[in-house]
C-alpha cells in the first residue's frame, strides 16, 4: 500500500456563525474586532487527515490565508493535531477573490511536496465552493470533490463521493486534492495536552512577498458596486405544541394544499 507522508489541509478563519456580520464603507466584510473561529466545515478534513497520518505515519500541515486574527483558527488546527502551520497574511489580500485566494493557497502548498491536499466542500461564510478545485488545477493535480469517505490503496486513493443523484466510487493517483463533506466523521476536540503542545509547534506567517507571489496576480477582479438591504420579514407567530397542530392544519387549508 502507498504510504502517505505529508497531508496539507486548507483551513479558513470565518466570522462567528452566531454573530452579526457587517460590511464596511468599502463594501468589504468588517473583520477587525469581529469574533471568529476555525470554519467548522474544515474540522472534518482535518480529522480525516489526522486519522490517515495516525494510522500510517506522516504529518499534517494546516495552511490558511486570512487576516492576522486567523492565527486563532490555525492554532486550533495545531491543537487538534496538525504538526505545523502556515498562514499567509497581507493587507494586500483584503477583498481577494476566488482566483487570487487560490493562487496564494497553491503557492503556499507548493512550497513543500505533499501526497494529499484536503479542504472543505465550501466555506461556512462565503459558500463559494470553487477555491480548492482551482488550487488543484493551478498545481496540475487531480481533484475529487464532495468526498464522504477515503481510503489509501495500492495506486492512490479510493473515495466515495456525493453526486446530484447518488454516490460514486472514484479513484485518483497521488498527489491529489479532495474536498470532504461535513459529518462523514466526527472531528475531535483539542485536548488540553494538544492545546499546550500547539504552542511549540512550527507556525510560519508569510507575507505575499515572502511567498513570492506578485501582487498583480491577487488583485481582485470582482468589485462590489452596490449593496441593497432587503427589508426584514415581519416576524410570524410562535405557538406551543397544543395549539400548534390545529394552527398548522389551518395554514395548510388556507394555502389550499389540503
Amino acid at each position: 500500500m502507498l504510504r502517505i507522508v505529508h497531508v496539507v489541509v486548507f483551513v479558513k478563519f470565518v466570522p462567528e456563525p452566531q454573530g452579526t456580520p457587517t460590511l464596511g464603507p468599502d463594501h468589504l466584510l468588517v473583520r477587525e474586532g469581529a469574533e471568529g473561529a476555525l470554519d467548522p466545515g474544515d474540522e472534518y478534513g482535518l480529522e480525516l487527515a489526522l486519522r490517515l497520518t495516525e494510522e500510517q505515519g506522516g504529518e499534517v500541515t494546516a495552511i490558511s490565508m486570512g487576516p492576522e486574527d486567523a492565527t486563532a483558527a490555525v492554532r486550533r488546527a495545531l491543537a487538534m493535531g496538525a504538526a505545523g502551520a502556515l498562514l499567509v497574511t497581507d493587507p494586500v489580500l483584503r477583498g481577494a477573490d476566488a482566483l487570487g485566494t487560490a493562487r496564494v493557497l497553491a503557492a503556499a502548498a507548493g512550497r513543500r511536496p505533499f501526497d494529499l491536499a484536503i479542504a472543505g466542500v465550501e466555506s461556512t461564510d462565503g459558500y463559494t465552493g470553487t477555491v480548492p478545485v482551482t488550487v488543484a488545477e493551478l498545481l496540475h493535480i487531480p481533484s475529487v470533490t464532495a468526498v464522504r469517505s477515503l481510503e489509501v490503496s495500492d495506486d492512490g486513493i479510493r473515495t466515495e463521493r456525493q453526486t446530484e443523484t447518488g454516490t460514486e466510487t472514484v479513484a485518483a493517483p497521488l498527489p491529489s486534492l479532495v474536498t470532504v463533506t461535513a459529518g462523514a466523521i466526527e472531528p475531535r476536540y483539542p485536548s488540553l495536552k494538544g492545546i499546550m503542545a500547539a504552542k511549540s509547534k512550527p507556525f510560519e506567517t508569510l507575507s505575499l512577498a515572502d511567498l513570492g507571489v506578485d501582487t498583480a496576480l491577487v488583485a481582485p477582479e470582482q468589485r462590489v458596486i452596490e449593496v441593497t438591504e432587503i427589508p426584514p420579514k415581519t416576524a410570524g407567530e410562535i405557538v406551543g405544541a397544543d395549539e400548534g397542530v390545529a394552527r398548522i392544519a389551518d395554514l395548510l387549508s388556507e394555502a389550499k394544499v389540503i
Partner: protein
Amino acid sequence: MASVWVFAPVSAEGAHPSAFELLTKARSLSDDVAAVALGPGASGASESLGRFGAPRVFVSDDSVFADHGAAPAAEALTSLVAEHLPALVLFPTTYEGRDVAGRLQAKLGSTLMSNATDVPALDRARTEIFGGTKVVDVELGGAEPRLVLVRPRSFAAEELAGAPAPEVVQVPADVPDEAKTVRVLERNEGSESGVKLEDARVVIAGGRGLGGPDAFSMLDELAAAIGDAAVGASRAAVDAGWVPYRYQIGQTGRTVKPEVYLGVGVSGALQHVVGMKGAKRIVAINRDAEAPLLKMADLGVTGDLFQIVPALTEEIRRRRSG
C-alpha cells in the same frame, strides 16, 4: 456581438433543468447564445437546449467527459473558449458546475463569481449575502470570458417561440492523459419516488432535530397525508448520512419555492435558508424557541416534534375524511 454561453450538465435523462433557466437569461443578454453539453446524452439534449434559446450547441457524447471528473470538460472548454471568445459563460451551481468552472478559472485566469442570483449585464452579477438580508451587485473585471455560477431557480425557464433546430457542433474528445487520471469506478444512482421536491406544493424538510434516519418515515407519512408534498432535508441530516444527498435543500443542494415549507427539527442555518426562503409560507416545528428558522417562520410551533408530527398527520387525515 459578445456571445454568452451556458454550460449544460447532461445525463441519459437529458440536460439539467438549470440549463434551460440559464439559456432563458442568456437570451436577454445577447443575440449570440450557445450551449455546451459534454458527455453521454449530449446530442440527445441538444434539441431541448435549442428550444430554450441556444441556436448553437457544442456537443460531445464521449464518455471521457463522464468518467474522469471535471478535468476533461475544463480542457474542452478551454479550447472552445480560445477559438470562439465568448464574453460570459454561465454555469449552474451543482457539484459538476463548480468543479468545471473552478478548473476553468485557473486555466483561463478569468474571474469566477459563485452563488449569483441574477446576471444583470455581461459584466455584472448579483448575489445575496448574510442569509438573503442584503443584495450585492458585483462588477466583473479582468479577461473575458467572465465566469458565473448561478443558483438554481434564479430564473423561470421559458421556451423560445419558433426557435429553429439548433446547429450542433461536435467537440473533439481528444483529452490529454493528464486530465484523465481521476477514474469513476462505480455509480450508485438513488431512485426518486413520488413528487419531485421542486414540483411539490408542500415541502417538508427534516433536520438534525429528527435525531436519526428512522424519523424520516414520520415525515413520509405526513407527506402522504397531504398528497402533493415531498420530503427534503437540511445539510446536517444529509451529512449525518440519514438521507441521501438528493434530499438536500440549500446552498449546495436543491432550491424549493413551494406554497408551504414545513421545517421539522431544522435549525435554519444560512446554508439551508437560501434554498427555501422563496417559499410562500414558512412553518417551523422545533424544540428550541431560539432556532433561527422559528424567527423567520410565518408560524412557529415549539415542542416535541415526535408528538406534533404524528398528531398533525392525524389531524390532516381527519379533516380530509370529514
